[in-house]
């Protein structure tokens, strides 16, 4: 069910669930993904099979060209930087240079005519490694005698954030009740269905290389590779063609791409690498491996007035480029209080190096974990204070905007309480409680869980600068142009890969210039064609790319009105743009967009120098950020004999500001929730004590299937954002953020009669049974 509100006045393209312009190619097999390109040579990476050690010798068959760190001695290591939070720069050689630090780390690249031959040869490359003792767990890595990953980061702490609000200690002492959560979030892999891959082709005529790859950030990929290989950026073109999902994993720079470009330049040919699923699972970046201890100080009415958090984020063996591994601990620190009015806040957040795959952003970045943590706090406090879980949230949600958090974040107008009330009404809580009671009498254990959260989206360069990032993404640029034939094109710096941005941006432009969306082509993901931009990540593209699009489209509109005014000899205010034409309102005096475009290019003398030639306008946008919000509700049944959790129903009341295309918006929420369900119940990258990954196939690392996803009911509120000129807020990550907390709370509600609590994700059958068994044995 979907219940979007009316959007008032006139028929606009914005707000309509039009079909996606992306789809015809994708449903007919005409999509073009990186691995679809023909290539001269296939590249296979030989990867470390041990978690820690020193490379003694690499032996390869004589006939096989093998690239190692020795060949790449002039290539700089990947060195992401933060200028704050005691960040220790940790470089990653593109191929391991003498030392290996996680299973899956690339050591050598093998080149052959076919992928099969490259694999055969890679199997014959022998790497002699003297193993050293690895450390896998974040807390173990903090111990005094723990193996040290990098000399530059003593104690394995790569960064450390500390915050304490004024008057915290005095406030803390006044607590009526202190409630504690020891939250554990296990490690995840974003698992896009298309594995990562790249294809670097040398062009002799231009002496340039085109790298086609599965990136979410084509422009920065170009900048970074040109920097590391030390050649002019203009000699590299980066293309992100159709990209098969990213979820953050594909925004981080893959060292493998650098090897491909190096090969293409050196041997003046084309080289391709497509990772297999095992490589993706063990070496394609991980996320969410955190311990959080959260203490909350409540007054006797259940008002949470102070929280104290300790965040230990396992960031793996290196730091990811460009965000750095600060992305998880720092996001946790900045956004821990979530939608609640908490005046006093103390936090200690660390990024901790271990002999595991490097952490990188994954949809939601830390917020699925902090939401799970603070939502557990709310439910525990509710139980401890004898307050209903919904009621304790009512008493604590922010309801006056703009609101400044204890750390200084400013929340724009939103609907935290309204979405909670909407969800509570829609789920019919009293009816559920009755049903739950009846089921318990029959030995069936149902539970309901709520989670309320807010999510910073569409944030510009100021937010990244506040983190001290050496590279501060944030703004976007869009060029909207009309060529002499009247063809409308928007070239954008964002780089969508499933989000439907070609459609939603076309809807925005359509309303401004009166041309239907299917006549508007949105061009992205090609550094030769699109203006410099940051790509698609962090729920930003519709807010920031959309804002830049609106600015550019408004300029085009102004220009079309001027041209029409001259051609139709009417005042601009009397002209309407509709159906691909300019019309003098209420008359049959019209000129088509093609007519205007022709004039603008070929009859410029008629404008007497008052209108610049051509129609091409640029929009830049760099907003401060806007907060979306939602309330998620899960109803689950726990089989206490087996520990299996079945989600019976999932309900969302969400507010992402103005919705440009309700169909696409709902799809984003659905997909996010599915990943949240995986996070809560199924997905876990497991390492053994030696640092060997045990979940290296999709039979072991288990994204949900259609079976695990319950019916999802969506409700919407649209609070237009003042921090977004389209009034839209971002919603790409919300589903992933809210779902785990709601599910874990629901499991705990179901298990309440047994006196056990689970504060760990995923809540697998084994973990649930272990808790129940311990209780049974104790009894």
């Amino acid at each position, binding site marked *: 069910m979907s219940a979007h509100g009316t959007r008032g006045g006139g028929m606009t393209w914005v707000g309509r669930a039009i*079909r*996606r312009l*992306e*789809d*015809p*190619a*994708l*449903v*007919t*097999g*005409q*999509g*073009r*993904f990186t*691995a*679809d390109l023909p290539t001269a040579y296939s590249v296979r990476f030989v990867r470390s099979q041990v978690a820690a050690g020193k490379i003694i010798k690499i032996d390869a068959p004589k006939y096989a060209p093998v690239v190692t760190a020795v060949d790449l001695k002039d290539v700089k290591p990947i060195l992401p930087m933060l200028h704050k939070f005691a960040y220790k720069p940790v470089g990653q050689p593109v191929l391991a240079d003498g030392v290996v630090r996680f299973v899956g780390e690339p050591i050598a690249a093998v080149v052959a005519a076919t*992928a*099969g*031959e490259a694999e*055969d040869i890679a199997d014959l490359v022998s790497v002699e490694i003297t193993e050293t003792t690895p450390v896998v767990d974040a807390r173990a890595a903090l111990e005094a005698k723990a193996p040290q990953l990098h000399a530059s980061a003593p104690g394995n702490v790569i960064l450390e954030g500390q915050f304490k609000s004024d008057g915290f200690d005095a406030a803390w002492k006044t607590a009526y009740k202190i409630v504690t959560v020891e939250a554990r979030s296990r490690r995840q892999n974003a*698992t*896009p*269905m*298309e*594995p990562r891959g790249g294809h670097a082709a040398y062009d002799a005529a231009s002496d340039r290389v085109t790298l086609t790859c599965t990136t979410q950030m084509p422009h920065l990929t170009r900048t970074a590779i040109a920097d590391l290989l030390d050649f002019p950026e203009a000699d590299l073109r980066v293309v992100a063609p*159709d*990209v*098969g*999902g990213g*979820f953050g994993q594909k925004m981080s720079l893959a060292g493998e791409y650098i090897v491909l470009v190096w090969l293409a330049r050196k041997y003046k040919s084309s080289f391709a690498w*497509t990772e*297999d*699923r095992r490589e993706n699972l063990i070496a394609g970046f991980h996320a969410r491996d955190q311990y959080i201890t959260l203490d909350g100080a409540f007054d006797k009415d259940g008002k949470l007035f102070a929280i104290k958090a300790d965040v230990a984020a396992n960031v793996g063996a290196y730091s990811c480029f460009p965000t750095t591994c600060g992305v998880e601990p720092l996001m946790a620190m900045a956004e821990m209080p979530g939608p609640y009015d908490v005046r006093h806040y103390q936090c200690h957040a660390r990024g901790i190096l271990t002999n595991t795959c490097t952490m990188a952003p994954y949809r939601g970045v830390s917020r699925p974990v902090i939401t799970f943590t603070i939502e557990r706090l709310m439910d525990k406090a509710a139980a401890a204070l004898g307050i209903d879980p919904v009621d304790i949230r009512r008493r604590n949600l922010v309801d006056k905007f703009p609101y400044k958090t204890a750390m200084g974040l400013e929340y724009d107008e939103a609907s935290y309480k309204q979405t909670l009330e909407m969800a509570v009404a829609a789920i019919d809580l009293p009816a559920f409680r009755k049903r739950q009671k009846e089921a318990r009498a029959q030995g069936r254990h149902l539970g309901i869980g709520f989670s309320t959260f807010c999510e910073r989206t569409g944030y510009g360069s100021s937010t990244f600068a506040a983190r001290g990032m050496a590279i501060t993404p944030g703004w976007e640029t869009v060029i909207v142009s009309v060529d002499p034939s009247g063809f409308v094109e928007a070239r954008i710096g964002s780089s969508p*890969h*499933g*989000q*439907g941005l070609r459609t939603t941006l076309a809807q925005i432009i359509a309303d401004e210039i009166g041309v239907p969306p299917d006549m508007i082509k949105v061009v992205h993901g090609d550094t030769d064609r699109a203006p410099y931009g940051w790509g698609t990540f962090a729920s930003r593209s519709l807010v920031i790319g959309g804002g830049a699009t609106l600015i550019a489209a408004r300029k085009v509109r102004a220009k079309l009105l001027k041209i029409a005014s001259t051609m139709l000899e009417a005042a601009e205010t009397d002209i309407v743009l509709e159906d691909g034409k300019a019309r003098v309102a209420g008359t049959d005096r019209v000129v088509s967009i093609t007519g205007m475009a022709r004039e603008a290019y070929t009859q410029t003398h008629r404008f007497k120098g008052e209108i610049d030639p051509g129609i091409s306008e640029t929009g830049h946008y760099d907003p401060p950020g806007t907060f979306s919000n939602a309330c998620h509700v899960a109803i689950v049944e726990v089989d206490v004999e087996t520990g299996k959790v079945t989600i019976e129903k999932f309900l969302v009341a969400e507010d992402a500001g103005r919705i440009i295309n309700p*169909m*696409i918006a*709902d*799809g984003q929420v*659905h*997909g*996010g*929730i*599915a*990943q949240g369900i995986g996070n809560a119940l199924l997905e876990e990258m497991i390492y053994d004590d030696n640092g060997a990954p045990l979940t290296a*196939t*999709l*039979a072991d690392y288990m*994204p949900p*299937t*259609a*079976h695990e*996803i319950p*019916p*999802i009911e969506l409700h919407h509120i649209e609070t237009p954002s003042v921090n977004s000129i389209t009034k839209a807020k971002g919603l790409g990550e919300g*589903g992933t953020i809210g779902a785990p907390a709601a599910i874990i709370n629901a499991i705990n509600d179901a298990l309440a009669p047994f006196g056990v609590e689970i504060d760990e994700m995923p809540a697998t059958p084994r973990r649930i049974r272990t808790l129940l068994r311990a209780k049974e044995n104790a009894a």
Partner: protein
Amino acid sequence: MSAKEAITLRINGRDHAVSVEPRKTLADTIREDCEQTGTHIGCEHGICGACTVLVGGEPVRSCLMFAVQAAGKAIRTVEGLADGDKLHPMQQAFMDHHGLQCGFCTPGFLMLAVGVLEREPNISDEDLVDVLSSNLCRCTGYQNIINAVRAAAKKMRRK
């Protein structure tokens, strides 16, 4: 590496004479030797189903079948679903119901759903979900895929 075998693959009614190693999978052969890249490869161990094609009318994981095993059999891929410019009801339904986002898993889901519905047009809703749980999608959360396949099933029955 071993000696290549000459085989003919009949894909969407067209013969492709290719020479492949016996170890080469049907998926790789369709993509590389027959240059039909609509069939995607997501895991190469038979879990994700992105590479699903129809062989002799049955949905098959083309990463788990050798090309030589499919020689002489009728193979259908996503490129053969539409009738000229007229989309197959399943393709149309995926567009109408927003059953795809990035589109990488889509060809596999289309072939799986078409294969099953051609064999079993009156399949129950419950069994349909069971069948669709054979393949993985990471973007859509499956709701709209299920809606799309149910809608297409109705249309296909009416035909």
